[in-house]
């Protein structure tokens, strides 16, 4: 994946570049808004990561300008301002996702990959599969090794989101935002408890676990781990 990073803080930029490079992505970096807009308009990128506060042209105005030319390009906003209002302002301007600083790199990676996947739709299907786990989107039936597993509605939505992002790290915040639809920071490990419930239903009676915890980042559902 080819990624444009527009970030003025050299350390953050270096950290992100190195992390993305390790995950086999190609990164172009610039530290100001004007160059960023120029690159974004002339080169082809799969995802753009842009800081909100930038010298030259700030992130929001960059996104607005970019959206006038290119409607589809996924944009992730980085910002030290982590409040609902800022989030809404960023998303209104045309950003696709919003990540408040400081962030764990794994969170950034998870979101970038989710953004890219969103634009690269796979074949349309009514059945999702990870290893021997299948999710029937029509009947909402979940089977593992052909055994029917009964899930609560919320557990089903949790599993569905994980399966839709199979082999991809999904963070706790992403789960809260999409499965519960609330933007907030829980003080305790509420999500972990939901995951361990789900795990006990889909993994406990089977030899190889599918639902893995990624230390310091979140969760991933995958058969290769």
């Amino acid at each position, binding site marked *: 994946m080819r990624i444009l990073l527009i970030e003025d803080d050299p350390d953050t930029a270096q950290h992100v570049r190195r992390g993305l490079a390790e995950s086999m992505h190609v990164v172009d970096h610039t530290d100001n808004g004007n160059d960023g807009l120029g690159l974004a308009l002339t080169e082809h990128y799969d995802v753009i990561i842009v800081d909100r506060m930038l010298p030259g042209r700030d992130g929001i105005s960059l996104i607005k300008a970019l959206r006038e030319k290119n409607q589809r390009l996924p944009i992730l906003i980085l910002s030290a301002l*982590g409040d609902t209002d800022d989030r809404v302002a960023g998303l209104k301007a045309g950003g696709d996702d919003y990540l408040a600083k400081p962030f764990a790199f794994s969170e950034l990676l998870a979101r970038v990959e989710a953004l890219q996947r969103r634009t690269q739709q796979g074949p349309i299907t009514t059945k999702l599969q990870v290893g021997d786990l299948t999710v029937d989107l029509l009947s909402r039936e979940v089977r593992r090794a052909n055994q029917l597993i009964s899930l609560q509605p919320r557990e089903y939505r949790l599993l569905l989101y994980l399966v839709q992002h199979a082999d991809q790290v999904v963070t706790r915040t992403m789960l809260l935002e999409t499965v519960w639809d609330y933007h907030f920071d829980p003080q305790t490990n509420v999500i972990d408890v939901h995951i361990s419930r789900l795990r006990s239903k889909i993994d406990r009676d089977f030899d190889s676990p599918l639902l893995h915890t990624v230390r310091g980042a979140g969760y991933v559902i995958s058969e290769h781990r």
Partner: protein
Amino acid sequence: MNIARFFPSTTFKLVIWYVGLFSLSVIVIFGFIYWSTATYMATQTDAAIETEIQALAEHYEKGGIRALRQLIVERVQRQHPTGTTIFLLTNPAYQPLVGNISGWPKGNENGGWIDFTLEDAGTAGNELHMARARPFLLRGGFHLLVGRDTETLQVAKTRIIQSLSWGLVLTLVLGIAGGIVMSGRMLRRLDVINDTSQHIMDGDLSQRVLLSGDNDEFDQLARNLNRMLDKIETLLDDIHRVSDNIAHDMKTPLARLRARLESLVQSSQEDLATRHDLDVALRESDQLLTMFNVVLRIARIEATPHIQPTEHVNLAILARDLIDLYEPLAAEKNLTLSCPTNQAVMIAGDRDMLFQAFSNLIDNAIKYAPLESHVVLDTDLGPKPFFEISDQGPGIPEPQHERVFQRFHRLDQSRSTPGNGLGLSLVRAVTNVHSATISLSDNRPGLAVRVTFPAAW
């Protein structure tokens, strides 16, 4: 003008003082007028009598007793029948020789004057009049008395008192009416300032007090207030900018620290002990960042304008979602989470903010509730919509109720449990933004936290 508001008002007190002082000064002035008029009239009368006596005495000196008698008769006759001058001439034994009263009056003699009552056999029957006369001893032992019926003087005095009293009443009425009108004007001017301040306290700092254009003290006050508000607004903007900059400038190095630790953890081939230390360091930095974020968030929530009544939140759905999210966590302690509400409870609010606040409260309830107890989320429209979370834990002693909302405040018994003492401060900030009140009460046993929202929206 609202009467119920008028009576306790400062302006009412002002009116009372104003009318009181005004009446007092009017009474003093009127008293002086009365006193000087009455004295003047009395001295005038006395002087006239003295002159008359002088004239009569001179006549006696020149023409003897006969001439005096003649003159007195003339004077009495020439006088108007209702005339008020009294003449009496007696022999040395006080037997009347000539005059218009029947005998020497018995009265209190006082400094050469006699005050006595006179029986006037007029057309309207017998009337008692006050009279005042001056006796004079003529050569040869004759007694001369010249005086005046002071009734007219009394009447005049009474009239003066009457008209002055009416004047006083009129003054009072006009003073009160004037005071009410004046204070009504003042109240209206103050109302403008009060209304504006209320709007500003509700979070709209862009409001300014309207000037009347009279350029009076109120306008000066309003102008000063407006200038002060301008200053506060710039200061607040500065604070926002500063806190944004702090967020940007201080969180960034912290984030770098975290990032370094993160890549160390990921790439480390170190022994188990080092890895463990790195993990702990990462967790610590996460905690530091979380705390930092929460403090900034509280500051920013406090600075947001009050919630506009266009954003509607159903508290019952919020309660249901909270239970859905926290039920597994509660189940680990065998707690039951329940919400008895089955009707919609609509309020004006920010859904995410309220969810954050209530989740902090549930977190606390679950943390402190004893095993196998009940945590109840209740919400109702009531007279005012409310949201209440009650547990059966140790509760919070009454004297601590206010202090738990202070930043970084932790109860002694909870120092050993994880937390940063910011949860309830954030709740308070969120409720303030919603113009809601938060109250703690004893759930016997346990704690009940109730957030009450304003009724009208």
